[in-house]
């Protein structure tokens, strides 16, 4: 029994962060990277020990660390301790966060070594790993919390890390401010969601008088009977939080811009772990959601709509990371739809496998980008000056990388096939389980949306693979691209293996993960394996890949050629390419009026009323003092007269009182 070790999943990243912060400068890049990776790795080790302990003793255990908020009043109590909750759900998240996190840390040593040089500031290497360990720390707090407030602390912590890491190269990007703007956008969009979380927490506290999971879930049915409306309100406000953090409609807009961060960040935070926090939150609050069918339906539909909507945008993007970003939004839609329908195990299963293959895809994309950047440097040196506007992330500049980056190609292929849902890779099983659950739980609309999204997923992944790796190089840098060192490719291979065999976690008929989660989430229905549906999903995926091949594989794109899809789809393609003008729409609907309001408050209100009051007070004082200073004549006798007069007045008061 290793339950007492539980706090160390948080403490190890903390130690790693502090060490790098204090003495990192003297350690060199390898030392910094080793300490950060070791911190994440040890955290993973603790999570594994916890998993073993839970296998023997599957009941949830709460490890108290310290008293946190002790407020006792006659009106009500708010007593929270800092406690680590060890149950099958939280340990599953810990394993994913620390496991994938460790691999990404190792990869990042190689990636950031080049990235800091490419961007011209090697001193930031240490800062990157400090932020990364801080992120692991915050994520661990989020998943290991035993009450909503502690979850919220982690929730905000990962949001902060996301902000810091998106804006890691804050002076770069469009007009030298693009990255900073992207970071700000992510932070503000998440604030909207956090508002929902806070309101949900307030409602929970007013209804249950506690924020601890155990108190709330054990009394949920009772409260639901007394006041059914409040459970609905709680779950719907929580959904707002989910749409913020997990990038669902309508708050998803920040995630594509978040690609401004370095690629390991996109892999760890914006694909594998942080963005799944919303899914985790719904799964954690399953006791509340299963009491509010309306909220469940809303969640499922938000997820399904997001899955399809984001997939259509991913089809027409050219930036290799943007495609993956929209794909992530779409896959998060799958998970949210699953947990919304009540298929919590299926959602968590897809969360885990998605962490494997999407982490893999992002890291491989980073490998591709650095390979092309390498080629750019090479050709730049050869030609005297590089093209000023060359974009190493634009897929139209790539092509033919299969032969130049062999390892990257194979792992990318594994990730893409897993994401597309090809048998027997991880994505096939997890996606199929969600579809099967949709059928079983009688959600035909959601099922249709998700199948369409699955088709588009296969199509855009096929398009990406054919554009990047097949055909001939469409630019000089791509022609001179170079494979990256083993420090970067080995984590890729490890993730590729996980992406291939990850489906074994919850094979149909065996349901390892489902049985595992059942100890925490009550009332799970194991998903039946529906063969026709699985075959349909597979056929749809193969059709998508075939279509991608016939458009982009059979006759590869030439340099400067327009996307062949734009001819076929016309204005629809244009809409997808421009992301359906959602950013512009939000700009008109929200940001424009907000700016107008801010302008109104700044000019007439702030300067006209508030500043005027302050300045008026100053002028008044000045006038008064100009009048009063005439009393100070500088003549001694006038002061003496004043003293005399004062004495006389006092005497007169005493005498005639």
């Amino acid at each position, binding site marked *: 029994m290793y339950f007492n070790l539980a706090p160390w999943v948080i403490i190890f990243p903390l130690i790693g962060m502090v060490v790098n912060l204090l003495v990192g400068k003297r350690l060199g890049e390898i030392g910094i990277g080793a300490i950060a990776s070791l911190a994440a790795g040890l955290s993973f080790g603790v999570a594994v020990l916890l998993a073993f302990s839970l296998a023997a003793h599957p009941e949830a255990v709460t490890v108290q660390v310290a008293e946190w908020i002790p407020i006792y009043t006659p009106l009500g109590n708010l007593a929270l301790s800092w406690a680590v909750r060890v149950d099958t759900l939280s340990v599953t998240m810990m394993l994913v966060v620390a496991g994938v996190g460790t691999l990404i840390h190792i990869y990042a040593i190689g990636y950031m070594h080049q990235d800091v040089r490419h961007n011209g500031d090697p001193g930031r290497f240490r800062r990157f790993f400090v932020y990364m360990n801080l992120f692991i720390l915050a994520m661990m707090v989020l998943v290991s919390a035993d009450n909503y407030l502690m979850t919220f602390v982690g929730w905000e912590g990962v949001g902060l890390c996301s902000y810091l890491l998106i804006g890691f190269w804050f002076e770069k990007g469009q007009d030298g401010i693009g990255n900073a703007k992207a970071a700000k956008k992510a932070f503000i969009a998440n604030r909207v969601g956090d508002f929902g979380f806070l309101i949900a927490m307030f409602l929970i506290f007013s209804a249950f008088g506690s924020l601890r999971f155990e108190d709330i879930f054990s009394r949920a049915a009772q409260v639901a009977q007394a006041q059914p409306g409040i459970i609905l309100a709680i779950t719907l406000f929580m959904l707002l939080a989910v749409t913020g953090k997990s990038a669902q409609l309508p708050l998803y807009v920040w995630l594509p811009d978040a690609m401004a961060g370095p690629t390991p960040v996109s892999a760890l935070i914006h694909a594998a772990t942080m963005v799944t926090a919303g899914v985790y939150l719904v799964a954690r609050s399953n006791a509340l959601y299963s009491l509010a069918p309306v909220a469940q339906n809303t969640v499922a539909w938000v997820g399904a709509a997001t899955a399809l909507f984001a997939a259509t945008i991913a089809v027409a993007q050219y930036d290799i990371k943007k495609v993956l970003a929209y794909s992530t939004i779409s896959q998060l839609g799958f998970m949210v739809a699953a947990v919304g329908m009540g298929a919590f195990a299926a959602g968590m299963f897809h969360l885990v496998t998605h962490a494997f293959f999407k982490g893999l895809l992002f890291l491989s994309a980073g490998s591709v980008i650095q390979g092309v950047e390498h080629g750019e440097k090479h050709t730049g040196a050869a030609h005297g000056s590089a093209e000023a506007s060359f974009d190493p992330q634009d897929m139209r500049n790539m092509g033919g990388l299969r032969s130049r980056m062999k390892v990257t190609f194979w792992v990318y292929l594994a990730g893409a096939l897993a994401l597309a849902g090809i048998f027997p890779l991880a994505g096939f099983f997890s996606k199929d389980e969600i579809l099967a659950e949709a059928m079983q739980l009688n959600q035909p609309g959601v099922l249709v949306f998700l199948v369409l999204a699955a088709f588009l997923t296969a199509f855009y992944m096929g398009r990406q693979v054919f554009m990047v790796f097949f055909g001939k190089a469409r630019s000089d840098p791509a022609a001179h691209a170079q494979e990256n060192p083993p420090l970067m490719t080995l984590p890729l291979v490890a993730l590729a293996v996980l992406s291939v065999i990850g489906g074994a976690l919850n094979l149909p008929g065996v349901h390892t993960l489902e049985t595992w989660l059942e100890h925490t989430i009550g009332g799970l229905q194991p998903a039946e394996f529906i063969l026709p549906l699985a075959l349909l999903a597979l056929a749809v995926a193969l059709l998508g890949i075939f279509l991608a091949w016939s458009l982009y594989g059979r006759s590869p794109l030439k340099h400067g050629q327009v996307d062949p899809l734009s001819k076929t789809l016309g204005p629809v393609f244009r809409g997808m390419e421009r992301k359906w003008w959602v950013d512009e729409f939000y700009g008109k609907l929200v940001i424009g009026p907000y700016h107008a309001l801010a302008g109104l408050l700044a000019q007439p209100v702030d300067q006209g009323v508030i500043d005027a009051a302050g300045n008026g007070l100053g002028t008044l004082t000045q006038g008064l003092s100009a009048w009063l200073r005439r009393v100070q004549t*500088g003549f001694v006798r006038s002061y003496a*007269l004043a003293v005399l007069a004062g004495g006389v007045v006092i005497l007169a008061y005493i005498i005639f009182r």
Partner: protein
Amino acid sequence: MVPLSYYLMLSAVMFFLGVLGVMLRRNAIIIFMSLELMFNAANLAFVAFALYYHSLSGQIFVFFVMTVAAAEVAVGLALIVAIFRTKHSINVDQLSSLKG
């Protein structure tokens, strides 16, 4: 025996003369002397009351006043000398640089 009111009247007259001197004269030394006059008016009142009430405390108080006055004179004269050195004048109307 001279009635108390005589002493007090004299004391009041002396005090008022002192006040007028302080207020009207410009020579710092004269102002100083007027101040001393006011002290002594007070002293006179003290001893008159002491005599009248057969109490020693009034008499003793006068000694204190004289001691303090002596100390004050020492400081005051030193100030006047210092002022004279910088301003070459002891006319108090010229010492108005603190005018508001």
